[in-house]
C-alpha cells in the first residue's frame, strides 16, 4: 500500500499490485478520525467488489484503473509476517526517543500502559520510565485503560513533545493504573501533561454537544475545562452552576484542540474517562447572584407595594376618620339641635303658654280688682323667673362633664361637695345597691332633681343635716333627699312661692322621667323627697 487519502466522506487507499495501481475505497470514515496512515508501506490484502474506472476520450471508452469497493477497514488485512517484522524493532524509552531526528519520522517501538483512549484519534501511553506519550492512530482494536500495549509508530514532535503517528499496536496483558495524583488547579503545569490527576473546581458553565460534555470550572482563579467524550451512551447529568466538583481524569496542557464555541483561555483540560469521575462535593449555595438580584427585586417590589399600600391605607383611614369625625360632629349637632328643639317644645313654649294665660287673667283683674292684679303680676313674674332659670340651665349647663364622664354617682359627689362649701348644713351622700350607668336622660333628670331638692333644703329648711341617697335596685333606681328642717304644710299654694315652684318643677321632671314622685313634709318634721324610676 502506498498512500492513504480521504475523499468525500470516505477514504481511498492506493495499492500497488504487481506494478498496477489499484485503489480501494472505504466509505463512511468519521470526519474527525485520523486516517489509517499506519497501513502505509505495509503489504496488505484487500477484499472488495471490483469496479473498473473508465474515462471517455474522443468517443473512446478506456479503462484507466481498477477500484475496489471495500465496506470497512476490517477487510484490509496486513500480512502477519510484515507485522512481525515491524515489532522486531527494539523498545525505546522516552528519553531515548530524542536520539532520532524527528523530521525523518523514523519508525519507533514503545511499550507501556494505556492511559486514555480516544477512539479514532489515538491514546495516551504511560511508558515504563513514567513518561507519557500520545499515540495517534485509528487502528481498530480492543484497548482497555491500564492495559499494556506494544506500539510501533512514526516519531514526531508537537510543541516540544514526542508523539507517535500512524501507529500500529498490539494489546498486551491487562494492568491497573496508578491512582490519580491529587493536585490543585494552580499546581497544574507542563509536567502534568498526560498525567492522571484529581482536582477540585467550582462549576461555571456546562455545555453539551453530540460528541462530548464540557464543563468549565474555576478554582483559585484558574479556569479549566473538563471534557467527557461521548462513547456509547455516556453523558453527564445537568449540574447547577456553582457546584463544587471533584474531577479525576487526564490532564492535557493547552494547545490541544478545543470543542467549538469555547475560547482558548483555559489553563488546562481534563479528559474524563467516565461520568463517575465527576463527583459532587458541595451543592451550589442557594444564593446565586441571579437569585440575589431576583430576591432584591422582589423585596424592592414588595417594599414599594407595601409603601404604596400603606400610603393608600393611610389616605383612606384619614378620609374615613375625617368622615367619621364630621359624621360624629353632625350627629352631635343634630342631637343638640333636637334636644334644644325638644326643650323648647316641651318647656319654653309650654311655660310661655302658661304665662300668657296668667297675663290674660292679670289683664282682666286690672280693671276688676287691683289687689288681685298685683297678685297676678307677682305670680307672672315668678313664673318668668322660674322659666328663665330653667331655660338658662337647659341651654347652658345641661350636661355637666362630671355627669357625662363619671356618671350619676360621681356627679352627685361633686354636687354635694360643691354645695357643702357654701353651706354650714351637714350634707351627706349615700350610695346603695349596684351603682351603674343609666341613660343620659335619666341620669340628667335625677341629677337635676337632686340639685333642686338640695338647693331648696339649704335655702328654706333651716335643717342641720341633709342626706342624699341614691339606691340602684335591679329594676329601678331611687333618689331620696331628706332633711331634718322646719318642713311645711304639703300641697298648699301658700307659703314660699319660690320653694313651691321648685317642688312643682321637681314633680314635673319626675313625671317626664315617668317616675313616681313622693313628698313627705310636716311643719317641724323635716322634708323627704323621693323619686323612683322603674328601669325596663
Amino acid at each position, binding site marked *: 500500500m502506498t498512500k492513504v487519502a480521504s475523499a468525500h466522506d470516505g477514504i481511498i487507499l492506493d495499492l500497488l499490485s504487481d506494478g498496477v495501481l489499484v485503489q480501494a475505497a472505504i466509505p463512511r470514515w468519521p470526519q474527525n478520525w485520523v486516517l489509517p496512515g499506519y497501513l502505509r508501506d505495509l503489504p496488505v490484502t484487500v477484499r472488495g467488489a471490483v469496479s473498473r474506472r473508465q474515462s471517455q476520450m474522443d468517443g473512446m471508452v478506456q479503462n484507466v484503473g481498477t477500484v475496489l469497493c471495500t465496506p470497512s477497514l476490517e477487510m484490509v488485512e496486513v500480512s502477519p509476517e510484515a507485522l512481525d517484522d515491524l515489532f522486531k524493532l527494539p523498545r525505546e524509552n522516552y528519553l531515548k526517543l530524542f536520539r532520532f531526528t524527528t523530521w525523518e519520522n523514523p519508525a519507533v517501538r514503545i511499550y507501556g500502559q494505556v492511559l486514555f483512549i480516544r477512539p479514532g484519534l489515538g491514546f495516551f501511553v504511560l511508558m515504563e520510565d513514567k513518561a507519557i506519550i500520545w499515540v495517534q492512530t485509528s487502528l481498530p482494536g480492543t484497548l482497555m485503560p491500564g492495559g499494556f500495549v506494544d506500539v510501533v509508530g512514526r516519531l514526531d514532535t508537537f510543541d516540544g513533545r514526542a508523539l507517535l503517528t500512524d501507529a500500529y499496536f498490539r494489546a498486551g496483558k491487562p494492568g491497573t493504573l496508578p491512582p490519580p495524583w491529587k493536585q490543585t488547579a494552580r499546581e497544574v503545569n507542563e509536567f502534568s501533561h498526560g498525567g492522571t490527576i484529581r482536582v477540585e473546581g467550582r462549576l461555571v458553565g456546562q455545555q453539551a454537544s453530540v460528541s462530548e460534555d464540557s464543563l468549565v470550572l474555576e478554582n483559585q482563579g484558574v479556569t479549566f475545562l473538563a471534557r467527557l467524550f461521548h462513547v456509547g451512551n455516556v453523558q453527564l447529568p445537568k449540574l447547577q452552576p456553582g457546584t463544587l466538583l471533584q474531577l479525576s481524569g487526564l490532564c492535557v496542557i493547552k494547545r490541544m484542540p478545543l470543542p467549538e464555541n469555547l475560547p482558548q483561555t483555559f489553563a488546562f483540560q481534563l479528559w474524563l474517562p467516565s461520568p463517575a469521575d465527576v463527583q459532587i462535593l458541595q451543592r451550589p449555595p442557594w444564593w446565586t447572584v441571579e437569585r440575589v438580584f431576583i430576591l432584591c427585586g422582589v423585596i424592592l417590589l414588595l417594599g414599594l407595594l407595601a409603601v404604596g399600600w400603606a400610603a393608600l391605607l393611610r389616605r383612606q383611614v384619614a378620609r374615613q376618620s375625617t368622615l367619621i369625625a364630621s359624621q360624629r360632629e353632625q*350627629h352631635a349637632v343634630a342631637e343638640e339641635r333636637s334636644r334644644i328643639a325638644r326643650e323648647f317644645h316641651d318647656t319654653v313654649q*309650654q311655660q310661655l303658654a302658661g304665662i*300668657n294665660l296668667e297675663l*290674660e*287673667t292679670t289683664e282682666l*283683674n286690672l280693671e276688676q280688682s287691683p289687689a288681685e292684679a298685683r297678685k297676678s303680676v307677682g305670680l307672672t313674674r315668678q313664673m318668668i323667673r322660674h322659666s328663665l332659670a330653667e331655660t338658662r340651665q337647659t341651654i347652658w349647663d345641661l350636661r355637666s362633664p362630671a355627669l357625662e364622664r363619671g356618671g350619676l354617682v360621681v356627679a352627685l359627689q361633686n354636687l354635694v361637695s360643691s354645695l357643702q362649701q357654701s353651706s354650714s348644713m351637714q350634707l351627706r351622700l349615700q350610695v346603695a345597691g349596684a351603682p351603674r350607668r343609666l341613660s343620659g336622660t335619666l341620669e340628667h333628670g335625677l341629677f337635676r332633681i337632686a340639685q333642686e331638692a338640695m338647693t331648696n333644703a339649704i335655702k328654706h329648711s333651716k335643717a342641720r343635716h341633709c342626706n342624699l341617697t341614691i339606691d340602684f335596685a335591679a329594676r329601678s333606681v331611687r333618689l331620696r333627699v331628706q332633711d331634718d328642717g322646719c318642713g311645711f304644710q304639703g300641697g298648699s299654694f301658700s307659703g314660699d312661692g319660690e320653694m313651691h315652684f321648685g317642688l312643682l318643677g321637681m314633680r*314635673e321632671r319626675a313625671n*317626664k322621667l*315617668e317616675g313616681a314622685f313622693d313628698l313627705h313634709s310636716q311643719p317641724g318634721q323635716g322634708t323627704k323627697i323621693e323619686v323612683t324610676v322603674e328601669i325596663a
Partner: protein
Amino acid sequence: MKSSSKIRVLLVDDHFFVRLGLARALNREPDFKVVGEAGNGTEAIEVFRRVKPDLVLMDYHMPGRDGVAVTRALLREFPAARVLMLSIDEKEEDVHRALAAGAAGYLPKATQREELLRAMRTVHAGERFLPPTLAALLTARVPANELTPRELEVLELVSKGLSTHEIAHVLGCAKTTVKWHLKNIMQKLEVSGRTEATRAALERGILHVE
C-alpha cells in the same frame, strides 16, 4: 250662679305652668270650676274616676301615654266624658288623631282666653269645636296621605338620621324593601328627598319631636 251649675273641669297637663294658668283663668269665671289636676295619663284617669268632671282639658303631648291615648282610654271607661284637646302645636295630623280618638274639640294653647271659654262651653253643650283655621287644615288633609304603620316606622328612623342600610338592619328587612317604602313615603308626602320628608312629617304632625 250656684256652684252645682258650674262646669266642673279636670286639667290634664304635664306642665304646672299651664295647669296654673288655666286654673286661675277658669276659677275666676262664674260658670267654671277646676275640680282636679293631673300631670300624666295615669293620674288623669284616677282623678277622673274620683271627681267625675263635666269636661276634661287634655294636653296632647305628655310623657308616657299622650293625650290621644289617654282620651281613648277615658272614653272607653266613660263614654259620656267630654274631652277638649289642648296642644302647643297646630298640625293637621294631630287634630285628625285627637278627633279620631274621640275628643270633642281641639285648641292650640296660644288660643285667646275668650275663644277657650267659648270652646269649653260648646264642647260641654255636647257639640264639637274646632277653630276655623284647624277645620280648614283638616279639610285640606288628603286621606291618601295616610302612611302604613311600616312606612311610619321607616319615616321615624329616617328622621333619626339612619341610612337605608341601617334602617334595613333595624327593621330586619332588605335594603330594597326600605327603598320601596321610602319611595311610597315620598310619594304620599309629595316630597322628593329624605330631609324634606322628615320636615313635612314634622310639620304635619305625622312625626313628633321626641
